[in-house]
């Protein structure tokens, strides 16, 4: 079943009361002196299954519905949210948002928004198999198949296995005083696995995940070799991996770590709210060379089928492809309506909110370094003693100082221009500007398969990241040997 994108539809009989209510909130906000207001309804429903040690004994489902209202009055922002609202509680929330804005005016950061033409759009999720139409039993059977394939690899070395499935449908409706009314639906499906292996007293673990903004067809196109079997093989091999060394080394990043680096080291720094608040190491460097010539960094929310993709952000602005760095030169940032107004540029649809109880804030979407021209073998050949890091897991950054950390699930020693012994999981740390300038070779391959959640200001948001293999002249490796 294919859903199609609709434009300028007439509201259905069911949707009209919601549209009337949200429009009424925006009209009342203006009557009460707001220069801008938006009212967002966020609804979601999800189903999850966890299969552990051969039993799918945990099933869950959930739903959420609520309203969030932002008001900008006398250049001061106020926000209020209410769960499971009706028209009375919605108007009470508006009263609250206005009183919050009036209180903010005590000493507010000058709030403003870019003027945008009103957009009227409805976006339906594009899926082949709506997961809400698939039985729980069928989902459980799929997980069993993935687990069994992995257990054949692990055999007697198994200590613990977990395979889980989650599907989620989100519907966000945005109405604002600029005449925008956008109603968008997205469906995401994701599976995670973790295998713990044991040999004597030694335990190791490996993880993998697959996720896309699609429906149950994700299961039909995901082969165990690319999901659970991959993680199982890694969990077994890590039992004989050596502890990683500590110190400064030339490193090669697998695309999954390239993605982490791009997200943590530069992505957060290029969020315009960090730039304007003094919380970015690249503040004031627009138009300057901040990375090696080889580096072009993009954040693109328009890529079909990617975890971080979307049509409209939570302010009703269309998503877009944003060039952050081009051949080493800082070209642009990710913007909200406010930061675009403050910097005198066009908004580029980067403001998303986790739920109705969260204000839209600037988030990355799909962030990556563009592929280069060298072969992976060339990257390796140039290193006498270094480390190839694989299996990106997580990272974080202090964007104001540009100090970041990335964690790799495994690594490989490089000796005399060749891949050598396998190493266990390890973190690396660096300084953003140093690392970007120390990228001296980029491979001609590309991968972006890191569906995950980014945490910022207490909100979690869907993001993806990736890139080619990259070589960094030196980085601090936090090993134990």
């Amino acid at each position, binding site marked *: 079943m294919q859903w199609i994108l609709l434009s300028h539809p007439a509201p259905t009989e069911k949707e009209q009361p919601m549209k009337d209510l949200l429009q009424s909130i925006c009209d009342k906000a203006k009557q009460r002196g707001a220069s801008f207001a938006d009212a967002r309804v966020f609804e979601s429903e999800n189903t999850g299954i966890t299969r552990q040690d051969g039993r799918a*004994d945990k099933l869950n489902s959930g739903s959420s519905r609520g309203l969030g209202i932002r008001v900008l009055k006398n250049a001061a922002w106020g926000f209020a949210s209410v769960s499971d609202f009706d028209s009375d509680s919605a108007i009470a929330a508006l009263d609250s948002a206005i009183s919050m804005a009036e209180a903010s005016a005590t000493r507010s950061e000058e709030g403003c928004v870019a003027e945008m033409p009103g957009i009227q759009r409805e976006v339906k999720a594009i899926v082949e198999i709506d997961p809400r139409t698939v039985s729980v039993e069928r989902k459980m059977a799929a997980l069993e198949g993935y687990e069994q394939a992995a257990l054949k690899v692990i055999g007697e070395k198994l*200590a613990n296995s977990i395979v889980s499935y989650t599907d989620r449908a989100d519907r966000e409706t945005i109405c604002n005083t600029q005449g925008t009314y956008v109603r968008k639906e997205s469906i995401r499906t994701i599976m995670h696995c973790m295998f713990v292996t044991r040999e004597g007293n030694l335990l190791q673990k490996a993880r993998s995940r697959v996720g896309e903004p699609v429906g149950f067809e994700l299961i039909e196109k995901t082969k165990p070799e690319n999901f659970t079997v991959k993680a199982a093989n890694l969990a077994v091999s890590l039992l004989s991996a050596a502890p990683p060394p500590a110190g400064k080394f030339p490193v090669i990043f697998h695309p999954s770590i390239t993605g982490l680096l791009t997200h943590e080291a530069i992505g957060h720094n290029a969020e315009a709210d960090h730039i304007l608040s003094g919380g970015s190491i690249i503040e004031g460097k627009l138009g300057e060379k901040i990375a090696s010539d080889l580096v072009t960094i993009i954040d693109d929310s328009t890529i079909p089928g990617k975890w971080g993709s979307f049509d409209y952000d939570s302010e009703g602005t269309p998503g877009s492809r944003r060039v952050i760095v081009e051949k080493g030169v800082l070209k642009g940032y990710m913007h909200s309506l406010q930061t675009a107004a403050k910097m005198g540029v066009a908004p580029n649809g980067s403001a998303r909110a986790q739920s109705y109880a969260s*204000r839209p804030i600037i988030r990355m979407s799909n962030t990556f370094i563009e592929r280069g021209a060298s072969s992976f073998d060339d990257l390796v050949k140039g290193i006498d003693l270094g480390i190839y890091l694989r299996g990106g897991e997580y990272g974080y950054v202090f964007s104001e100082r540009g100090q970041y950390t990335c964690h790799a699930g495994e690594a490989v020693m490089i000796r005399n221009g060749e891949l050598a012994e396998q190493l266990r999981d390890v973190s690396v740390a660096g300084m953003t500007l140093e690392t970007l300038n120390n990228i001296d070779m980029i491979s001609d391959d590309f991968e972006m398969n890191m569906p995950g959640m980014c945490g910022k200001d207490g909100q979690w948001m869907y993001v993806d990241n990736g890139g080619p293999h990259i070589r960094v002249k030196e980085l601090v490796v936090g090993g134990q040997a």
Partner: protein
Amino acid sequence: MIDNETLRKIAQAACDSAISNGAEFADVSVGYGKSLNVDLESNAIKSCDSRTGGGISVRAIYKGGTGWSSADSLTLEDAAEAGKNAASLAKLAEPDPDFISLPKPAEVYPKVEGLADPRIGDLDIKDLIRYSLENIDGALAVCSDAIVQGGFGAHYGSGALVNSLGVSLVSNGSHISGHIMTIVKRGGDVGSFYDFDIARVLEDFDPTEVGAMATKEAMKFLGARKIETRRMPVVLGPLASGSVFDGIVGNADAEGVQRKRSFMMGKLGEKIASDVITITDNPLINRGMSSRAWDYEGYPSKPLMIMEKGILKSYLYGSYTAGKAGVENTGHGTRGGGAASSNVIPQLGQMTSEEIIRSTREGLYINMGGLNPNNTTGDVSSSVDFGYKIEDGELVYPVMNAMVGGHFLDMLKNIDVVSSDYREEPGMIMPTLRVQDVLVAGGK
């Protein structure tokens, strides 16, 4: 607000529905609350926010298989629907023969004072704005070009927890908090730091100096340098030592041990840390941030000695893991899996933190960050988020881009001292401690 008895009725409706729809056991948690927040950026107010809402979560169990259903709606009809959904899922879930029972109601629950201060629920946004502006001004008084961000928030809520064996509990809870992050720039050199204050009752909330303290520390962080890679003692300050205690307590979760994915497996009764480490988990501290009279399943809370002079004395159990192991429930149950610690209290030592630093000839002082072990392997590979080089017993310069690595159990054995002084927040004792012979990786 929705009163406690209404929340109890909603929870009971969901529980009854789960049982009447075929679940063998059920428990339900319902909550409702209000929060006010002031969000700060660029030395001003970014936004003032008010949030009101609640939700229900139903857990139904059938032959040990579990189904959960959650929703934001708090009507009796929707509660019954949630109960029905949870029961349907539980009946589809595969059976788990290791499940024994949910907790039965206790005859007596402990009394813990100071968990809910109605005055926090009555605070106006102007009160939080006052705290915020005082701290911005306090930061600027220390450094006139400091860049301040952060926030102040207050929350008051009510909840009910009901299960099919007769547990029926209601409670209120409050907390107030403030945090400030200050950035100071001198050309391309950037110093930053973060400080906070938290409390359950207004008397314990003293945010007066948070902005000033964060700014003083941020200024000390200018001129950070890289260091060489080598082994040295590492001193963890009050904002970092918690990673050691949490690393012990968090990995003493019985579920991780029973599932064979924890490096603490098989360590009960063993000496796995030095003599100076004794840790109690105490949920009964009046006004404590993590205090509770019962755990998340409704089992009565009590203090638990987790480690005594380096010997692991207990894992943390809830109803499922205690039943599986055939031991007494320790009151650390959650409804979603895993154990929940409460106030983790270390035993203090004899030397002050100043004496510990003075007695360290060369080392690294971690102001913020920690040892955060991999919870399966116990390996540590962590960044030093904020640290100082120690030379001849003094903190001589801030450090950038350094990491620590090793195995957590080796590090525990190498802890040679815990301080006598500490930073205190309600229910939180945060001392300084020193780990000898740690591999520090630096960028120099």
